[in-house]
């Protein structure tokens, strides 16, 4: 599971990293970088820094 804390206000949770990337692109397009956010991955039941980075390229 993946989640993103978007604009430091709301969490959005996804089954996969790819789904998260799609959501960000759909939500903010090329200007995703103007939004503050933090991405986490659920590993062993704990939300933590993802095992792999996420690129919106």
């Amino acid at each position: 599971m993946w989640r993103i804390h978007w604009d430091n206000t709301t969490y959005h949770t996804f089954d996969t990293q790819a789904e998260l990337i799609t959501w960000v692109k759909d939500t903010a397009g090329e200007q995703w970088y103007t939004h503050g956010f933090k991405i986490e991955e659920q590993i062993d039941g704990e939300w933590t820094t993802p095992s792999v980075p996420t690129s919106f390229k």
Partner: protein
Amino acid sequence: MPLGFAKSTFTYAAAAATGSGARAFFGGTRANDGTPGNVATYRVAMKNDRFANNTGITFIYWIRYKFSELSSNNQHRVLTYRDFADLGGGQTWIGNGTNPFAIGANIYNGSENIVMSIGKAGSTYGNNLTAAQGVGDGSWHCVMMRLDMADASKRHIYIDGEDHTAGQTAGASVPSTTSGNNPKLNNIDFIGIKAAPGNDKDDTRGSGDVDGGGYTGNNSQQFPSADLGPVWFYDTDVDITSSSVRAKYYNASNTDGYVDGGTDGTDGGASQPELYLYHNASTLLNGGSLSTRAPFVVANGSGAISIVADTDGPGSGGTR
């Protein structure tokens, strides 16, 4: 004496000369119409040296633009400091205020994105929209930004020596470890001066291809109409909250407030930055401490760099 940069065709921009300042450049048309158009700008590849993997960056740049020339609903990139994989660094931009954060900057490290923007209540330019309008008055302005990923108290924007830091910084602080969440400044592959033309996007290039990857798929993020330069870029926190530090870059007693950095950025008393990008009579040069490839032009169509003469650059009092 450095120059700034701006327009297409290799001609000197028409100048309303009231004095002698630095040179600058612009690239391409004066219209930011969201098409690749005939535009050009520079990119600096970090081939030989890399930024240190510190938690913060600071940049100071001189810019002149007209708000009426900004395209709607877009952030025009002033500087892009990125890696090819898009997992480190960020960009600083100016928008027309229809989006939040009209003048701002970010750092993204692969999992966390921090953003800061202008909009301090009571400052000269007020909120986002009025800030973009106010700075876009066709005169030269000095923008100073420092952005620290590990310390939210070290995120500031000054324009013409005045604090415009908004309470709008976004993103939590993250540890400054070398293996965990950090800005990964040492991964930055290139510095784009304004956004490269949209057609320059090339996803196939990697870090070994030092010239490639202007990286923006959005032509509207180009900023051909901006006259720009010189630029100081540090891979450390420079305490721009100190008036004595700001005075090394901006002095209200000078024309436009311009303080000449010379050929290495230090003539006004500043420390030599990692990159100091200034224009001479023919091209952009790096007088910073890091060894880079020579700044090179990326262009689309018939776009070409146009030099803003020192009689019209920052410190000249010239306007558009």
